[in-house]
């Protein structure tokens, strides 16, 4: 079953741009702001104060894992996240879109975790999500989650490529790289991600370690031949 998280969220695509802008302004006003920077580029970038609270402790139950922190992304932020991660990893043939394997929920778990590393990422991701919406609206479209595919792509084209970041958008580009890394990590640690890569590990077997398959050795020999290197002999 494939579905995107966005379809289950209450925010209607028919909400007017004016209403959304008002909502957006209210959220920004209510957010605890620790810093407001980048004004010289006209970028609205409000860094939230880090969350505090208990982690899972130094002796958690490893056989029945859980975490104690509450999830903190709003439905709107989750919708924006889902739209973004599905641009990073869209459905492709048999492969699911990132949101279909729970990536937005994972990013929610991540930015809600009360650890310094995760809170540093929260400080990048929350303003980044808000920026996607404001940028999309400023360019005359919908909020990011409801924008036309071309509108979303146009924004990503400005921030997603290492050597082609639009001047002034360095901070959103940093945000994008962070979400891309989390998205890839969350996707490839999922069951589907393992299957996609063909990861066969953490599966017990008896007897001696089988080692490389004949096919893998033949391939290696081919590679070494083209490089002018000899296939190793002796105790291997």
């Amino acid at each position, binding site marked *: 079953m494939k579905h995107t998280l966005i379809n289950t969220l209450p925010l209607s695509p028919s909400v007017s741009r004016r209403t959304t802008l008002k909502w957006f302004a209210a959220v920004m006003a209510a957010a605890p702001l620790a810093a407001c920077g980048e004004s010289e580029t006209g970028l609205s970038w409000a860094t939230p104060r880090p969350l505090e609270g208990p*982690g*899972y402790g*130094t002796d*958690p139950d*490893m*056989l029945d*894992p*859980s975490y104690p922190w509450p999830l903190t992304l709003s439905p709107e932020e989750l919708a924006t996240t889902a739209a973004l991660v599905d*641009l*990073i*990893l*869209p459905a492709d043939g048999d*492969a699911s879109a990132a949101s279909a394997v729970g990536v937005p929920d*994972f990013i929610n*778990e*991540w930015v809600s*975790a009360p*650890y*310094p590393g*995760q809170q540093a990422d929260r400080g990048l991701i929350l303003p980044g999500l808000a920026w996607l919406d404001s940028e999309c609206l400023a360019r005359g479209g919908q909020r990011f989650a409801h924008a036309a595919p071309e509108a979303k792509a146009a924004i*990503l084209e400005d921030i*997603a*490529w*290492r050597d082609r970041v639009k001047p002034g958008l360095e901070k959103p580009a940093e945000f994008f790289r962070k979400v*891309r*890394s*989390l998205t*890839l*990590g969350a996707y490839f*640690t*999922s069951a589907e991600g*393992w299957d*996609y*890569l*063909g*990861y*066969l*590990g*953490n*599966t*017990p*077997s008896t007897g*001696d*370690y*089988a*080692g*490389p*398959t004949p*096919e*893998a*050795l033949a*391939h*290696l020999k081919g*590679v*070494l031949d083209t490089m002018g*290197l*000899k296939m*190793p002999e002796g*105790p*291997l």
Partner: protein
Amino acid sequence: METYDAVIVGSGAGGGMAAYVLTKAGAKVLMLEAGRDYSPDEAPMLSFARDAPLRGVGTPDKNFGYYDATVDGGWQVPGEPYTVSEGSEFIWWRSRMLGGRTNHWARNSFRMGPYDFKPYSRDGLGVDWPISYDDIAPWYDRTEKLVGVYGANLGMENHPDSGPGALQPAPKMRVWELFMKAGGEEIGIPVVPARRAILTKKIDERDPCYWASPCGRGCGIGAAFQTTTSLIPWARATGKLSVETGAMVYEVMLDASGKASGVRYIDKASGAHREAKGRVVILAASTGETARILLNSQPNGRSEGLANSSGQVGRNLMDTVGSNVSAYVPALEGRPIYNESGAHGLHAYIPFWLYQEQAAGKLNFPRGYHVEIGGGFREPGMGGYDGLDGYGGDLRKQVKQRYGASLGFTQRGEMIPNDKSYCEIDGDAKDKYGIPVLKFSFGWSDHELNQVTQFQSAMRELIDQLGGEVTSSEKPASELISTGGEIIHEVGTARMGTAASNSVTDKFNRTWDVDNLYLVDGSVFCSKAHKNPTLTILALSMRASEHIADRMRMGEL
């Protein structure tokens, strides 16, 4: 109060071996462990990272990840601080659990060689050990047979072969290791079978490796050596071992004649101060904690601490030299997939290969290093995506194309003891039990920095040979070298030696000043060879414990 034949402080490699040897010899032993009871039955061996919080990545609560075996420990232990002197950097890994750090170590088990025991004689730096390789060789054989070590005898300089039957067969090399070996052979860098304390054949009740589960999670089947699946249960089976957990030892007691009579500790559950009495006291609390207990034991108000007439307790602190190089190798792209987990760590490694060049004066650093190599179709994790760019369907394909094509080279090198590096009691800070804490001072010298520079350049040559591109940054050695303590190989704070004037213990780990007080952890090391210390701690503890048992039989103790 019950009096034991021996009171052992600590349940890791040194303490576990002492408990095993002494109970087997018939002694009645009490083992005190500061942490909680632990069994590898708790180990989440086949759990998936995706089921752990944050996909199992390291956090301040679990520094090496959610599933790491370490309980109540890491770079910081809640309520048990340590301090670092101004201008120094040092970090101190502790665990508070039965079995100590043996529950999560990498199991790399390289013997120290003839040069390693006589380093001063070879290059005039540091000090020689009071024992030679030949003295310890039989104990290495016995230790390897007992704990189970895989590897191969290769006849390499200063990398001794084991005695007949001591080693188990090493697992087959994987494609990326063979590839590295092929490239290394062209430029004289050897890639050879590694040695690790992991069973590849069943012995006693322990099963061989089943080629799954990262060893750091703990090994409930007993294949990867830890004291909680071997030495401690075996000692318990004699009926001679009592284990008390949650017992934070802070002082060695002396009797009127100046002999050790036992230890004082805090029962963590109740907060009560207690005493344990024994004919022999054996400290195996770890290099840092053993020094701390000695320095905090101040019989008759002696401010220098116990067994410290040499002034060497806390001095000569060493850790392994570490630095890394990583590479991306297009030639490994798109190769056929198979299960490359294997024993989850080294099947092969690069031993130090430049002793002849060093002897000929061609290197600008003394001593050596080895290289722990990484690669393969590893379990996908949260990191390793920085080389990618853009977005969209192609990104997923790129990850697959790059899967298994990254290599890592980790330097593990020898540090020379220096007078910048030591630990002492902090005059102000105390832990939550009121015990004064350790203050560390640490600094590298040019010996280590030059070694890092040479390693970085040698690995770049190898990567070039493999057609790879270096993905780690090129920086000065001072920025690439590990932080003191980071490699968790700290040793040397109560070194053994030839005389009471220059050392804390004799060659049998017995303190010069107190005849029935023994130190059987890394604190007694005279040098920090590039070989990982645990195997040597085990062998020295076995030797010292048999020495104790002999003295007990002779009525000396």
